[in-house]
């Protein structure tokens, strides 16, 4: 809402500079975007072109002698319309215009001591300028006083604040509402609006009927004004419309906009001669057609409120009028509509067709008292500025609530909620400034009470005018007290609540810490990806979740895996020559299953390039480093000995290398996957894992307990066996574990070898085995016996032989 200071001064007597006004409004909750003069130009003066000759060295420039009262200036001007006798706006040497500063100078050998201006050069927006100003310099009336300030002369010495209002303050979308708000801030009265006009003796109700056949219109008023003359609006109306951001059209259209700005009530004017003696408000029929005044044919639905002439739709209520009934240059008789339509319905229709000054006011709610006020105000202005003849009476439908809202509130309640001590007198004073009536013991207060008169009073009743539709409960009144009295003096304290221990998600924090300790960087990425990537790394029976109305195709689907996001991050880094990437992310992934939507907490990681393994040990990332990270994490979370890596090709997604990937199984339940990204997707070796944290963490683990350490020395034995290449290390380890018995406490692989000395299709695996007992030192015989048993079983199960 753009507030013209000149406009609002009609209703409240304020005298503060525009910045102060804007800041004071901000303090009571009304933020602003900008506060400045309507036209930002200095050192301007009205002049008269006394002589105007063609420039000797130019085919379009003129050399003028311009009388500015105190002297006659030589000025070179390029405008096609400059001519002798014209009254012009002269920007003097040193004048600062929005886009340039004027300096005395020589133009092609001719002295020029200023500039003749168009309105555009003074900062008037292009859409408000007329054709003369768009192509040349502004032409002032011939009686404009030489030597005076042209902006003041034109009545455009206005200042404007562009407010960004909160959604509840629909009342501030009017000059009157602003006047009340400023009146409360500066403790000023609000002046009455002039609604006086004459009426002729033909009653509208004899020839015109209003019928409302929907609950979505609470009040509909119509008045007729005859014999109007279409013409220009007076300058002050035009200037105020411009200051408010509305383009002047002609006196009649301008009046409807002007009154909307003043009262907040949108009006619609019909050419009365195009109507059939009746207006009906109803819901549109499904598929009903209407040509709106922008010339487009609209197909309506049962959700749209329409105005009809009894036969067909002639306008979309509150949103846009119809083409057939609009005001034209030939219009003689006007029907003024002043009505309130349901905000939710208007919002829906206007979202599809046009959000306008009018529709946004309906959406935020209106005061039916203003519906009457606006009707009379428009009639008055049509009489005054369009020579109209107001027809007697109002055709109306009204089931609106015009009454004030009465709210009871206790002084204690106010102080309890605000947490401060405001005297009873100060509370009353806030309501006086807001022009709310207050009843004490059922008697209307004259606001003369002193604190001692109020000693025994605990509660008051506040009568809130309908214009403040945002106030309906006592908490709203408390807010008003806080707003106008100010809450700067509140002394902050902490809530007095019983002490207790707070809690947070230790597990996620632990996982994050562990991954960071392992050397990975945490990332945070967008969950919205494109529908192609969203399918990556998923192989289950769920569907993807996509947006109804995405902003871009690149982000139209919710990720089902975090890995596509990590791949994007990898690509981003690769493009910036960051070769070593080791990243992880904990976040949500989304799915749809049998019409149900759900989300899963997951952890995913991606590793490529070199990775630091402890101290000064840099190694190119491979499958085993990744596997080590997964194992470290699972061990950390207490799943040691309960996980395995399973190869089930049909369960692996297509995006992983089929020979370098596995599923992660905990308690024989698949919780995730790890492996190399398929070379078709990423040429370089990139390794990833992802674990469904909800599924994993659902598996209970016991409390961490200390395990006794043997007091007796342990014994290490190395064992190298030769087996078929396709036998996995895990298969061998399982046998070793079984054969080694309880005294075998550790099995480590320290070498895998193929090549010279080993038959083809065979490999050698070397293990370091640790034996120990809790109660005694093992003898050599016992250990040798174990080794023999292990070798025997390996031979039996896997045909393994000892490596010579």
């Amino acid at each position: 809402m753009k507030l013209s200071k000149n406009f609002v001064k009609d209703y409240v007597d304020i005298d503060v500079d525009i910045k102060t006004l804007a800041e004071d409004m901000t303090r009571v909750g009304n933020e602003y975007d900008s506060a400045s003069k309507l036209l930002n130009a200095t050192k301007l003066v009205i002049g008269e072109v006394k002589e105007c000759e063609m420039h000797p060295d130019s085919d379009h420039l003129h050399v003028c002698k311009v009388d500015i009262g105190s002297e006659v200036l030589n000025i070179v001007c390029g405008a096609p319309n400059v001519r002798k006798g014209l009254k012009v706006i002269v920007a003097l040497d040193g004048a600062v215009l929005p886009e340039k500063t004027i300096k005395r100078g020589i133009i092609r050998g001719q002295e020029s001591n200023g500039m003749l201006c168009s309105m555009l050069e003074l900062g008037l927006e292009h859409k408000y300028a007329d054709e003369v100003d768009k192509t040349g310099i502004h032409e002032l009336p011939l009686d404009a006083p030489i030597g005076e300030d042209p902006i003041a002369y034109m009545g455009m010495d206005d200042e404007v604040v562009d407010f960004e209002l909160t959604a509840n303050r629909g009342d501030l979308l009017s000059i009157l509402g602003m006047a009340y708000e400023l009146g409360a801030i500066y403790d000023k009265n609000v002046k009455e609006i002039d609604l006086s006009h004459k009426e002729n003796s033909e009653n509208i109700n004899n020839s015109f009927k209003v019928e409302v056949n929907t609950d979505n219109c609470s009040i509909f008023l119509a008045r007729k004004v005859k014999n109007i003359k279409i013409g220009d609006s007076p300058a002050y109306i035009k200037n105020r419309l411009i200051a408010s951001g509305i383009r002047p059209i002609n006196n009649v259209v301008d009046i409807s906009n002007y009154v909307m700005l003043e009262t907040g009530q949108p009006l619609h004017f019909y050419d009365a001669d195009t109507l059939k003696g009746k207006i009906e408000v109803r819901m549109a029929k499904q598929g009903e057609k209407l040509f709106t005044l922008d010339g487009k044919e609209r197909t309506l639905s049962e959700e749209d409120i329409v105005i009809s002439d009894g036969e067909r739709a002639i306008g979309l209520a509150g949103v846009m009028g119809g083409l057939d009934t609009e005001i034209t240059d030939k219009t003689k008789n006007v029907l003024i509509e002043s009505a309130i339509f349901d905000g939710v319905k208007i919002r829906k229709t206007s979202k599809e067709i046009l959000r306008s000054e009018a529709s946004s006011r309906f959406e935020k709610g209106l005061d039916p008292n203003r519906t009457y006020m606006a009707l009379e105000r428009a009639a008055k202005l049509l009489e005054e500025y369009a020579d109209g003849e107001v027809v007697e009476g109002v055709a109306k439908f009204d089931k609106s609530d015009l009454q004030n809202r009465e709210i009871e509130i206790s002084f204690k309640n106010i102080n309890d909620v605000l947490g401060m001590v405001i005297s009873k007198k100060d509370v009353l004073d806030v309501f006086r400034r807001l022009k709310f009536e207050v009843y004490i013991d059922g008697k209307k207060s004259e606001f003369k009470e002193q604190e001692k008169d109020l000693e025994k009073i605990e509660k008051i009743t506040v009568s809130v005018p309908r214009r403040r539709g945002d106030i309906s409960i006592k908490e709203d009144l408390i807010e008003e007290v806080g707003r106008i009295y100010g809450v700067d003096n509140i002394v902050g304290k902490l809530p007095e609540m019983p002490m207790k221990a707070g809690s947070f998600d230790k597990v996620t924090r632990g996982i994050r810490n562990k991954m960071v300790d392992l050397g990975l960087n945490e990332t945070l990425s967008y969950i919205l990806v494109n529908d192609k990537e969203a399918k990556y790394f998923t192989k289950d029976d769920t569907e993807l979740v996509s947006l109804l109305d995405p902003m871009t195709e690149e982000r139209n689907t919710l990720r089902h895996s975090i890995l596509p996001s990590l791949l994007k991050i990898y690509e981003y880094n690769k493009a910036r020559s960051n070769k070593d990437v080791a990243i992880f992310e904990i976040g949500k992934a989304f799915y749809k299953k049998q019409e149900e939507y759900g989300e899963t907490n997951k952890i995913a990681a991606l590793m490529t390039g070199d990775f630091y393994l402890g101290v000064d040990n840099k190694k190119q990332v491979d499958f085993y480093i990744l596997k080590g990270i997964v194992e470290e994490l699972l061990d950390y979370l207490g799943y040691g000995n309960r996980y395995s890596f399973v190869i089930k090709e049909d369960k692996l997604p297509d995006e992983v290398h089929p020979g370098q990937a596995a599923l992660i199984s905990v308690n024989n339940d698949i919780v995730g996957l790890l492996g190399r990204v398929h070379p078709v997707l990423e040429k370089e070796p990139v390794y990833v894992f992802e674990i469904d944290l909800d599924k994993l963490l659902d598996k209970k683990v016991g409390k961490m307990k200390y395990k006794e350490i043997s007091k007796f020395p342990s014994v290490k034995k190395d064992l190298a066996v030769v087996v078929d290449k396709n036998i996995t290390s895990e298969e061998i380890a399982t046998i070793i574990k079984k054969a080694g018995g309880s005294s075998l406490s550790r099995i480590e692989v320290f070498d895998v070898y193929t090549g010279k000395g080993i038959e083809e299709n065979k490999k050698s695996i070397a293990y370091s085995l640790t034996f120990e007992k809790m109660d005694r030192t093992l003898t050599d015989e016992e250990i040798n016996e174990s080794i023999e048993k292990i070798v025997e079983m390996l031979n039996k199960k896997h045909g393994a032989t000892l490596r010579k």
Partner: protein
Amino acid sequence: MEEKINEISKLKEEALSEVNAATNAKELDEVRVKYLGKKGELTSILRSMGSLAPEERPVIGGKVNEARDEIDSNIKLGEEKFAKEELARKLKEETIDITLPSTKVKRGSKHPLNRIIEEVEDLFVSMGYDVVTGPELETDEYCFERLNLPKGHPARDMQDSFYITSEYLLRTQTSAVQARTMMANEEKSPIRVICPGKTYRRDDDATHSHQFSQVEGLVIDKNISLADLKGTLEVFVRKMLGENLELRFRPSYFPFTEPSYEVDVSCFKCGGKGCNLCKQTGWIEVLGSGMVHPNVLKMNGYDPDKYTGFAFGTGLDRLAMFKYGITDIRLLYQNDVRFLNQFDRLDR
């Protein structure tokens, strides 16, 4: 006898001068062998005591031992000196160039937004708050309706949403968790929670990201007032951004609180004098807050005549940007490892 005594003192003088002249431990040892060894010169005097008169023996014996002790202690002193010199030499030999590059032990880093979340969590947990979370794929009911924002409410425009269906959407605000927390509390007992998390709005420009993070706070009890809100936010803002900061409450409007306030904090860059960060106002808007709207209490099972509460919410992206001096929000989501690596530092 006199002769013997002279001989002893002569030997002693000779020995001491040799000790003095010794330049290393080995030479000292040679002196020891020469005079004090089994075949040493002083030792041999003792050996020849048999040829002395019995009354002379103790006198000569005493003299010899005196001389031995003196020589021995001098040798020891010399040895100590040489040992010290040897150690100093060795240390010098072992001196390295400490300016050579270090051996790296690389650790990962937490994402700056999660660092902020952890810091906020720790602060509020220390005041007895519980950290709660809720779904990001939320229902219209919890995201809006239970927060006093019925369908068609104009304030919904403030938060243009990503809908999945007419009922499901990506949550636009962590406030959705407020309703969930109140509903989940079956005894309708006092509440003290914060809920950090991701939120989504149809908004993408230099200062907005369609995905961002918020933290929400909710306290419900009997007799909770705006003063409690102010005090709590003072602790929050001062711990996160700086101890000497002041707060300013500016009336505003949120459908789920009444009264509602935007909270400005005195500019932590210029101290309130006015600078480009605070656009010359001296204040920076950091939070939205207010007293829980009675409709919200009622809709979620709390009796507004008995209970009051406050709620606040703030954008963590901006907080992270302020705290770490990040000027472009996109850096937070690009995840350049050169950016991420910088966050492996304790922020004291």
